[in-house]
């Protein structure tokens, strides 16, 4: 019949088109990968990724957590995790991740001078991402949190095509232009078949330290509306608080340095919501 002929043609087309694509292969030793992305720059991906990684570890001390900074152009993780230096090489020529607060970290920032720009075209970036994924001695990890760069381009495609991803967390502020990009980010993950676990509404509200008056600097509830439109859950709400920025700038993220604070509790809640939504990990 013609419909089975159509289906056969579609299958054949899909097979031919996928021939050029890299094969998805899990990273050795890593059970589940969670990516933190946004589409928009400057909404708090790195801050969120760092605090989520620490929260996952704080939640269950038997779990091993790793943190990969895939932002080749603007790696923030070294500063936020108070790590510096070139990674050692193992006898098998793999890079040993740098560890702090119990989290194994790898970043482009460990491979170049702090102020050196990385002015690379997509092709070189792909190869760098490949190295950061596969040529690192991650050991046995329960979770690998990947901090993505802004945009919907080479890095995002390379990561999603190369490794299976258990889920993506999309971070956005309530600002309209940020939401536009977050929507594109969610759309991108749909295109590459990565499940989106939910949205994080970041910098939701600012409370004046003097008079306690609350201002929604980036707008109110924009992320909730977007979540509704996309049929996604809100994993958590993080206010715009000087502490969060200060602690990251000084390399002592709030989950570690002020675990009783509202901010830390917000991140712990987000980690719990992520765990609720992840599929059962492989044995």
């Amino acid at each position, binding site marked *: 019949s013609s419909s089975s002929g159509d289906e056969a043609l579609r299958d054949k087309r899909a097979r031919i088109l996928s021939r050029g694509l890299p094969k998805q292969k899990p990273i050795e030793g890593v059970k589940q990968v969670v990516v933190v992305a946004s589409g928009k720059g400057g909404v708090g991906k790195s801050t969120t990724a760092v605090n989520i990684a620490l929260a996952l570890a704080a939640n269950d001390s038997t779990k091993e957590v790793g943190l990969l900074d895939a932002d080749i152009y603007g790696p923030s993780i070294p500063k936020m995790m108070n790590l510096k230096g070139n990674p050692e090489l193992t006898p098998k020529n793999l890079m040993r991740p740098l560890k702090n607060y119990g989290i194994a970290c790898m970043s482009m920032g460990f491979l170049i001078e702090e102020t050196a720009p990385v*002015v*690379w075209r997509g092709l070189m970036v792909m190869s760098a991402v490949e190295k950061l994924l596969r040529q690192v001695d991650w050991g046995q990890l329960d979770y690998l949190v990947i901090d993505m760069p802004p945009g919907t381009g080479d890095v995002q495609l390379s990561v999603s095509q190369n490794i299976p991803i258990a889920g993506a967390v999309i971070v956005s502020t309530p600002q309209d232009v940020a939401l536009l990009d977050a929507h594109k980010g969610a759309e991108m993950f749909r295109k590459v078949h990565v499940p989106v676990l939910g949205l994080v509404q970041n910098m939701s509200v600012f409370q004046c330290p003097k008079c306690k008056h609350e201002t929604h600097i980036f707008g109110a509830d924009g992320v909730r509306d977007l979540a509704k439109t996309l049929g996604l859950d809100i994993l958590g709400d993080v206010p715009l608080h000087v502490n969060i920025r200060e602690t990251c700038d000084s390399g002592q993220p709030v989950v570690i340095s002020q675990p009783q604070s509202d901010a830390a509790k917000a991140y712990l809640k987000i980690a719990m919501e992520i765990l609720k939504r992840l599929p059962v990990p492989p044995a």
Partner: protein
Amino acid sequence: IAERSNLAGVQHILLVLSGKGGVGKSTLSTELALALRSAGKRVGILDVDLCGPSIPRMLRVQDSAVHQCDSGWVPVLLGQDKAIALMSIGFLLERPDDAVVWRGPKKNALIKQFVSDVAWGDLDFLIVDTPPGTSDEHISTVEALRPHQLLGAILVTTPQ
């Protein structure tokens, strides 16, 4: 017969860069363009942030369409006096929410077209808004603009 380049009528080209995302490049580009227009200048804005084009929305023209003319694309003209010309990938998408998930070579091709195939006309300033990072978009934009009068770049950052 030498064709008159589409950028021949542009007096000064300004790049707005940052490295870091979310520091206000698009906001600054837009406000700067408006400020220059208030000072009586003819201004164009080229939005080469292909993944996250914000400028159409900031100027409330996200529903506009671009048309072709003999010399190429006609930029969207803003205001009563039509004194601001804008080109962005946002105008080429079927829906504003469509994601542009492209690798470098495809982005490079479009940026080259944006630089050479948009009929800018006579402008005092062309402001080029870039995405975060130091990647394909930036390399391609600077390469494509090299034969022209690149005035310089403005770096935007927050104190963080």
